[in-house]
């Protein structure tokens, strides 16, 4: 019997309309765990670098995590994997909600799409009954609207639907996949779904998910719930409010947005408004939130309430999570009233809440600076709010300038030319980032921004406090019950870390310490993404209920795979390296691993070089960021080595000379 997983994938060939139920190899689960891990293996095996995002041979994989569907609290994530149209690298956006557990209850771990459907379809999975159904009547419909129509059509309110809106249908490079209260938004996976002609996947399941050692497993689950209760009652003192508790930052709960509005940038990630927040704003924004927010809501089997149903006056209700609360507001220099309103359209259209507002602010900046002119914006209203609505419509329909902007700031700037590249200043690996511009280089964040292959800071940070505590008492209090650390040395780093002086940023924590901290933070995210655990209960917050010490027990007693910390760490390193290998085979190198030039005012090129050199060594990568033959061999990834040698990416001899031309990139400035 298979435990935690079902042992079956659905293989859907959209070009032929064929559906197969395929048994998977349990040894793959031992090596790559599941979710992101096994997705990466499938992508490596079946999508060689010659395949472009919109080729029929590109795969679109919807995977439940290994422990989704078990009683493990907060384990509900769907990991969607494909090749991103925006970065042309591997994309693995994720969503919470209710879809992944339902897929497990239907009897499948993954749905793997290949080919392209000749007409718009949706997939209906009802236990053993799986069918592609005509979706022509859903063409152009909003994502939530689509989900409702499908539920009515199937006469089953318990069907969970993941769907795309107009943006996905029109292959907008930052189109999302929306589902329940969640969405898989980053890197344009909605565009690949639209390109393949899939409007939605509706799933309903009523089968059992088994665990290997029930008594032990439920005990672990109970401990987690107890610890969540404890953490909810004991917020961490001395850190910003949004970092005190568990879950995603509790944006739907908080009224006080002083920190975000005064520290994050407005417009096209440029303008800081230090004195923005005052009583009048606070009162108005509180009123807006209280009037529009109907209820705080959760994902499957999770007590945290990170989302909310929002009902803007005169518009349909939608569900919101986290920071999209402010991204539109701040990009448009507007207020919360506007932000929550336009997010309704954006959710129905199915676009990413980070990239979209930035693309629109970028377009308006080009307009103000004469690079784009009135001819590019025929009929655009004169007020900022009106302009945002107008631009959103053009983008999702790919009309006029919208067709250019729909490819994101990097590609749009290239196409527009005339110096537009200067304005696409906030991307990493061609992907829009948080609008954050700071003063002093933070070496830990430098490494995370540079090397994170989810290309999104929230998907790599966590665990380690973002800033030192001013007093020794506070530090001692913090480390006292900090049992989540993988090694006691992290406590000492925190104890010694000072806001000013010798032991402060950027030279303390030392280069080696920074590398270890980043490696720990990233490791936690990669475990989550294989198990389907929400980062909000694990890799993202300080002192989470899931950590490197209880995860092996969850996997052992849940999935019946013998696991300890060493074996788990090795498995993570295996599929983390495989993700890198896929991107390396697609041309990613050291030269691409850099935060936006203007992210920090004070930069330290020598230190940054040393950080990257040391981190690459720690990870088993050569000086150009390519995994070495030796480390690939250790991880059982000889098949990657062989491929790299064949393609000339590695030379075949172990002592490869460092590539100077690549590292030279960092020295400019």
């Amino acid at each position, binding site marked *: 019997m298979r435990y935690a997983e079902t042992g079956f994938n659905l293989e859907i060939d959209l070009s032929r309309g064929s559906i197969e139920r395929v048994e998977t190899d349990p040894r793959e689960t031992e090596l790559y765990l599941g979710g992101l891990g096994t997705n990466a293996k499938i992508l490596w095996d079946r999508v060689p670098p010659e395949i472009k995002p919109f080729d029929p041979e590109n795969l679109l994989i919807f995977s439940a995590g290994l422990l989704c569907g078990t009683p493990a609290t907060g384990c509900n994530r769907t990991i969607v994997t494909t090749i991103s149209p925006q970065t042309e690298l591997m994309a693995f956006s994720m969503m919470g909600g*209710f879809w992944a557990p339902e897929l497990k209850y239907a009897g499948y771990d993954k749905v793997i799409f290949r080919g392209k459907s000749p007409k718009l379809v949706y997939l209906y999975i009802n236990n053993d009954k799986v069918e592609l159904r005509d979706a022509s009547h859903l063409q152009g419909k909003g994502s*939530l609207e689509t989900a409702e129509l499908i539920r009515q059509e199937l006469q089953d309110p318990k069907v969970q639907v993941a769907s795309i809106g107009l943006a996905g249908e029109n292959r907008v490079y930052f189109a999302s996949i929306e589902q329940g209260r969640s969405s898989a938004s980053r890197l344009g996976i909605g565009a690949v779904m639209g390109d393949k002609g899939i409007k939605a996947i509706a799933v309903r399941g009523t*089968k*059992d998910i088994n*665990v290997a050692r*029930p008594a032990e497993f439920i005990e672990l689950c109970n401990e987690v719930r107890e610890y969540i*209760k404890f953490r909810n009652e004991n917020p961490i003192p001395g850190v910003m409010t949004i970092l005190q508790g568990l879950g995603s930052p509790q944006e739907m709960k908080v009224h006080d947005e002083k920190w975000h509005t005064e520290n994050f940038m407005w417009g096209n990630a440029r303008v800081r408004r230090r004195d923005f927040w005052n009583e009048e704003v606070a009162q108005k924004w509180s009123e807006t939130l209280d009037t529009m927010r109907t209820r705080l809501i*959760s994902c499957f089997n999770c007590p945290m*309430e990170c989302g909310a149903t929002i009902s803007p006056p005169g518009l349909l209700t939608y569900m919101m999570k986290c920071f999209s609360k402010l991204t539109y507001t701040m990009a448009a220099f507007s207020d919360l009233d506007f932000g929550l309103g336009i997010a309704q359209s954006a959710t129905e259209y199915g676009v990413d809440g980070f990239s979209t507002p930035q693309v629109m602010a970028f377009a308006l900046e080009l307009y103000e600076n004469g690079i784009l002119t009135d001819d590019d914006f025929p009929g655009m209203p004169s007020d900022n709010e009106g302009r945002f609505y107008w631009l959103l419509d053009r983008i999702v329909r790919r009309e006029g300038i919208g067709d250019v902007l729909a490819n994101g700031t990097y590609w749009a700037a290239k196409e527009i030319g005339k110096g537009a590249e200067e304005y696409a200043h906030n991307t990493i690996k061609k992907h829009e980032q948080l609008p954050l511009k700071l003063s002093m280089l933070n070496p830990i964040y430098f490494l995370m921004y540079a090397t994170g292959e989810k290309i999104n800071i929230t998907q790599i940070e966590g665990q380690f406090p973002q800033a030192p505590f001013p007093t020794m008492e506070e530090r001692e209090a913090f480390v006292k019950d900090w049992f989540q650390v993988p090694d006691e040395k992290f406590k000492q780093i925190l104890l010694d870390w000072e806001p000013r002086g010798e032991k402060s940023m950027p030279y303390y924590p030392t280069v080696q310490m920074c590398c270890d901290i980043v490696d720990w933070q990233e490791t936690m995210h990669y475990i989550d993404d294989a198990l389907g655990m929400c980062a909000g209960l694990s890799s993202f917050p300080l002192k989470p209920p899931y950590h490197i010490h209880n995860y092996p027990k969850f996997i052992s007693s849940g999935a019946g795979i013998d696991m300890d910390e060493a074996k788990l760490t090795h498995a993570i390193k295996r599929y983390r390296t495989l993700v890198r290998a896929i991107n390396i085979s697609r041309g990613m190198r050291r030269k691409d691993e850099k935060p936006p030039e203007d992210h920090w005012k004070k930069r330290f090129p020598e230190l940054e070089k040393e950080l990257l050199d040391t981190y690459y060594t720690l990870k088993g990568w050569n000086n150009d960021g390519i995994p070495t033959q030796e480390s690939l061999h250790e991880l059982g990834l000889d098949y990657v080595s062989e491929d790299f040698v064949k393609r000339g990416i590695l030379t075949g001899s172990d002592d490869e000379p460092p590539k100077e031309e690549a590292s030279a990139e960092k020295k400019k400035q």
Partner: protein
Amino acid sequence: MAEKKKKIIKTIKVDADKCNGCRACEVVCSAFHAAPKYSSNNPARSRIQVIRHPLKDIYVPVYAGEYTAAECMGRDKYVIDGKEYEECAFCRASCPSRDLFKEPDSGLPLKCDMCEDDPPQEEPLCVKWCLNDALTYEEREEEVDDEEEVKLEDMEVGLESLVDKFGLQKVMDTVTRMSQKD
């Protein structure tokens, strides 16, 4: 005259305003009632079901009550505070009119047993797992007439529903046939 006897009334108080719709109650209910205990889970087997319509702000945790062989002569539909609830939304019956509160494979009825266990649980597990206080547990004592209660065994409850569905003769024939197989 029957004597008075003390009886414990067990109540789960449902505060639907506090429900966040996460369905942890369904998860733990189905896991607790699996055999062996916690060896599997499947919300479709849960004896509590959250009737959810997020966009209409409807969240109603409903407990499995009595099995009924025949549906009501008509159905009910409530509108409260402007929100229209689905047909029979508040009804606890395992009834031919709907899929709710039936084992998904056999179709046998399910009924909440307040997590009867040996040793007894402090409170039903759905309550324990609801960290949002939508479900709370209350006990009180009441005096009732002391009547001999005939408690059907679990198997009889199941058989009774099969008899209702297929008729006594068919069930007997099946049992006979099964016993001859060995």
